[in-house]
């Protein structure tokens, strides 16, 4: 928590799980598997705890999929399997009609399960290990509601009113869900909003999302980390302007450049490469990247995004070990 506000540094940065650190080896060690851990609070919490007790991460994060809210909003979600992450099979608002947000959305099973898992984690490790929650931002939810390509086409066609209306209808969900997660026991909440580099530009972010993100960060009382994938080098300042406490970033954003640009304004969390390093690399490759990030001044060390399920657990342990070498 101190690292999030760039406070007392201690002897090392924390090794954190911000998105998902679940791999087959971890499922085996915890005796809990996907898809059960997406839909059952006990299994969800069990797997999150294993990230701490088996691998050694300093946080526990019980939400592994990006489709919890989508399911609550009427998407048909295929919860996948041990080898496959969940995915939505339809886009209920492809016509950009008004999104109907259920009044009791927090009681929908796919959201309730996360809140219950956080409560379980609080009972087990509250006050000892940082509990990290997660919500999807309005941009990601709009991908799920309208379809990614459809939404991006509307951006290209400059259908600003249509898009903004949908984003505004959706923004109450991350606010309510994040507040509920804090009440349930989360210490930090990640807001994942895939205004991803190369999918959209910094100018799109400024036009469509920045004002909404500012409202969201003003509404939510509690530490918030923004997660956006891709090369976001051109919009780091905008993320800091939006009022987030931290930004979780990918390897495509060089740690040194990120620290130089916004390190004084926002906590930086990242950015060990998933595909080439954690999944296909060796422990020494992982160590090299961790040390580079620490030396650059990254405040918390984490995989860049949800890790591939076939990632060897040795590489995750190597991440933690490299962090334990200290500053």
């Amino acid at each position: 928590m101190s690292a999030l506000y760039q406070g007392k540094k201690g002897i090392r940065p924390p090794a954190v799980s911000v998105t998902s650190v679940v791999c087959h080896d971890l499922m085996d060690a915890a005796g809990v598997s996907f898809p059960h851990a997406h839909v059952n609070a006990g299994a969800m919490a069990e797997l999150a705890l294993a990230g701490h007790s088996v691998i050694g991460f300093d946080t526990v994060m019980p939400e592994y999929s990006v489709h919890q809210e989508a399911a609550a909003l009427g998407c048909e979600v295929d919860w996948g399997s041990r080898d496959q992450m969940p995915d939505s099979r339809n886009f209920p608002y492809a016509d950009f009609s008004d999104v109907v947000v259920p009044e009791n959305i927090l009681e929908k099973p796919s959201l309730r399960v996360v809140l219950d898992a956080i409560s379980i984690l609080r009972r087990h490790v509250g006050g000892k290990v940082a509990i990290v929650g997660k919500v999807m931002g309005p941009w990601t939810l709009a991908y799920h509601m309208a379809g990614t390509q459809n939404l991006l086409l509307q951006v290209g066609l400059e259908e600003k009113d249509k898009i903004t209306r949908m984003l505004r209808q959706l923004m109450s969900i991350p606010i309510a869900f994040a507040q509920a997660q804090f009440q349930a026991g989360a210490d930090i909440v990640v807001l994942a909003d895939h205004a991803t580099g190369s999918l959209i530009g910094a100018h799109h972010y400024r036009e469509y999302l920045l004002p909404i993100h500012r409202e969201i960060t003003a509404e939510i009382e509690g530490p918030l980390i923004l997660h956006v994938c891709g090369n976001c080098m051109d919009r780091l300042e905008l993320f800091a302007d939006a009022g987030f406490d931290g930004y979780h970033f990918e390897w495509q954003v060089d740690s040194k450049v990120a620290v130089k640009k916004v390190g004084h304004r926002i906590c930086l969390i990242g950015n060990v490469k998933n595909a080439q390093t954690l999944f296909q690399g060796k422990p020494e490759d992982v160590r090299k990247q961790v040390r580079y990030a620490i030396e650059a001044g990254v405040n918390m060390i984490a995989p860049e995004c949800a890790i591939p399920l076939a990632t060897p657990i040795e590489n995750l342990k190597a991440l933690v070990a490299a962090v334990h070498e200290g500053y």
Partner: protein
Amino acid sequence: MSATLEQIKQAVIDGKHKEIEGLVQTAVDQKIDLNRIINDALIEAMDDIGKKFGCGEVFVPEMLVSALTMKKALAIIKPLLKAEDSKAKATVLMGTVKGDLHDIGKNLVCIMLEGAGFEVVDLGVDLNAEKLVEKVMEIKPDIVGLSALLTTTMPEMQKVISAMREKGLRSKVKVMVGGAPLDAKFAEKIGADGYGKDAGEAVQLARRLVAGD
């Protein structure tokens, strides 16, 4: 290049989808060679937009609108082409591998390849190796293009290539791969013929593969 062709090219680059049909009709009325409209205006424009995307000048929204604009232009031109003029450069079979439902990257590559004169057969998403091999045997494409956005689905590409090898198809068909988590090293490791980092590169790669470079 004639002023009309210049205007068509610029309209595609700028995504002026409401104006394109009028411009193409003007070019047709001026009896400008249809292949010149395709090659000098449309393909040039899509090459240009591909390059702009590659260097971060434009993003997916702009590419999608340019693609929409190009499609409207082709819809006017294609029915007017004589059979021999409309012969495709080569056939590309495109698909996202098993376990992966992401299709924007693959769709952009399809659009760009079509714009560049290739015949594209888009098999969609979540395709297993057996299905892909079956389609290769049926359609006999010149190139198979495989896409994956998820790191979890990258290994599927290897399975497709191995399955093609087992059926004796590998030497007859080129394989190109792409997707955010991939790189050239991975493409080489799994025995693909090439990797394109974005839609623009994929078109260049397809051209090279067909030319036998």
